[in-house]
């Protein structure tokens, strides 16, 4: 009885929560429960911290040729002094790997950001206006996707000239269709939703509906796809670097480092193992994080 008496107005149930949970908080809650996703987040954070604080963490400079007793410290095996060993010019591989994170993450992030912006705009236009606009944009995407992506990237770099900046532009371009198609399909399904009809029924303009109602409802898949594509973009950066079309020597880029140490794989395998391991772990981190985000943000998984 005392319990009943306390709730004076039966129509107003007592508050269950202090604050209404936002969709992002819900997503974080389910993300937190996923161990593999947390491992991915951990790996990504590890590399991000490494990249940001590279000058503090790295024991040596990237292009310093270290000296040993007789000559410069060329191809030295991992030791207490050089944890990851040295390369053919006597440069500390640990330091170069740490600085390499800066390049890979920056290129990966900005290339994907570029693809997201261009891809979303094209996808929205194609999905919302449909008809011949849609046909033209979609066919261009189909043509781009018909090429093996790395081949397309090589072709673009071949036109623009090999450099890290041009590699970034090429990677951004080849990933545009991925986002374009994703956003187009989201727009196609969302524009049929009743809340879009309701928004029209209160007299909203097309542009406002597109950017205030359709786009925010597509952010979750864009974030998931973006995270997964950063991983691909990092591999593509390394691949272009490896082929000599991306970062140029002596930039400490992981793919370039792999290419430079190709000839020493049998007698000095550490020259390849550590940059290779760095690529693998970063990509793994982004993939695990992306999968976790997909599970956390997927509306179908919610009750």
């Amino acid at each position: 009885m005392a319990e009943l008496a306390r709730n004076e107005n039966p129509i107003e149930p007592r508050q269950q929560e202090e604050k209404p949970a936002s969709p992002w908080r819900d997503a974080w809650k389910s993300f937190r429960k996923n161990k593999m996703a947390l491992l991915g987040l951990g790996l990504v954070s590890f590399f991000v911290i490494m990249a940001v604080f590279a000058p503090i963490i790295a024991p040596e400079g990237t292009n310093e040729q270290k000296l040993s007793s007789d000559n410069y410290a060329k191809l030295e095996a991992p030791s207490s002094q050089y944890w990851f060993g040295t390369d053919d010019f006597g440069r500390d591989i640990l330091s170069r790997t740490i600085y390499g994170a800066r390049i890979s993450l920056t290129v990966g992030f900005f290339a994907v950001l570029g693809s997201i912006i261009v891809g979303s705009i094209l996808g929205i236009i194609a999905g919302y206006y449909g008809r011949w606009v849609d046909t033209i944009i979609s066919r261009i995407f189909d043509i781009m996707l018909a090429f093996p992506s790395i081949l397309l990237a090589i072709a673009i770099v071949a036109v623009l000239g090999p450099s890290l900046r041009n590699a970034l532009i090429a990677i951004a371009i080849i990933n545009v269709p991925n986002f374009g198609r994703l956003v187009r399909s989201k727009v196609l399904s969302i524009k049929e939703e009743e809340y879009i009809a309701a928004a029209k029924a209160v007299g909203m303009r097309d542009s406002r509906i597109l950017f205030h109602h359709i786009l925010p409802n597509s952010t979750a898949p864009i974030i998931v796809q973006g995270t997964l594509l950063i991983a691909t973009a990092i591999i593509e950066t390394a691949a272009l670097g490896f082929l000599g079309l991306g970062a140029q020597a002596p930039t400490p880029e992981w793919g370039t480092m792999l290419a430079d140490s190709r000839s020493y794989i049998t007698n000095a395998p550490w020259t390849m193992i550590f940059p290779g391991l760095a690529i693998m772990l970063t990509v793994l981190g982004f993939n695990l994080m992306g999968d976790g985000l997909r599970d956390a943000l997927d509306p179908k998984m919610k009750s």
Partner: protein
Amino acid sequence: MDAPVLDVKGLKTYFFTDDGEVPAVDNVDFHVKRGEVLGIVGESGCGKSVTSLSVMGLVPSPPGKIVGGEILYKGEDLTKATDRRMRQIRGNDIAMIFQEPMTSLNPVYRIGNQLIEAIRLHNSWNKKKAWNRAVEIMKLVGLPRAEELMDSYPHQLSGGMRQRVMIAMAMVCEPEVLIADEPTTALDVTIQAQILDLMKRLNKETDTSIIMITHDLGVVAEICERIVVMYAGKVIEESDVQTIFKKPKHPYTVGLIQSVPDMRQKKDRLYSIPGTVPKPGSITQGCPFAPRCEHAFDRCITDTPQLEEQEDGSRVRCWLHDR
């Protein structure tokens, strides 16, 4: 009698598909007076939703197109209005409530933001003033803890509460006409009654005209003053609510009323009209209801009946009532 707020004359909305043109709404006339509640009744696919979308200027185009007729809102023909003018009218003068309260609110925004957005589309008010108005309208539609609900997301509300929010959003700019497209169909019965009471109360308090689109005769009996029965894209009977329940004229209306379960009579089987609604446009000659009609005679198959005024003021499209 004052002039109708909304007067639809000879409205034709056709859909142009690969299989040819489909006259979803064919020569429909109806009007709503100020403060009146009009019911548009019919089975699924009879064109009642397309009629309401035509009035709002929201017929999906392509494939849909208004090919004829006039929609006069206070004398202004909405079929000829520019997009800009239509946007001013939508929400501000004619508002609409949709069937599915679960999907009619944008899931990524808080309730308050959606209401405020709707208010600020038609008024140059500052945020604070719009916020106050939103809370006021939420209290008017009977939502408890209005201030708190402003910060909630749609998925945190029940179906009935969401439908109240939708009504609040439609009423927020004090429209002259409110079109309610099956507003209670997706709700359970107790909530249905509450929503109907609310709409009746809003109609009395604000003098808003309501067009209630429904297939549920119970809803019609509850709230409407005048009824338009539609079949296969055409108006087949129009009369006031007492007449239609006491003395339905068109055999289709009779059938509809008979198919409502009656609690006072014990019947073994509930009446149902044989057959299904024909595809609009498939019957070009004769009365579209003739193939399902018990009373059909030769003339029904060869000649198309017109909407004729009867002695009691109702209008019927049927050869049985030809004078």
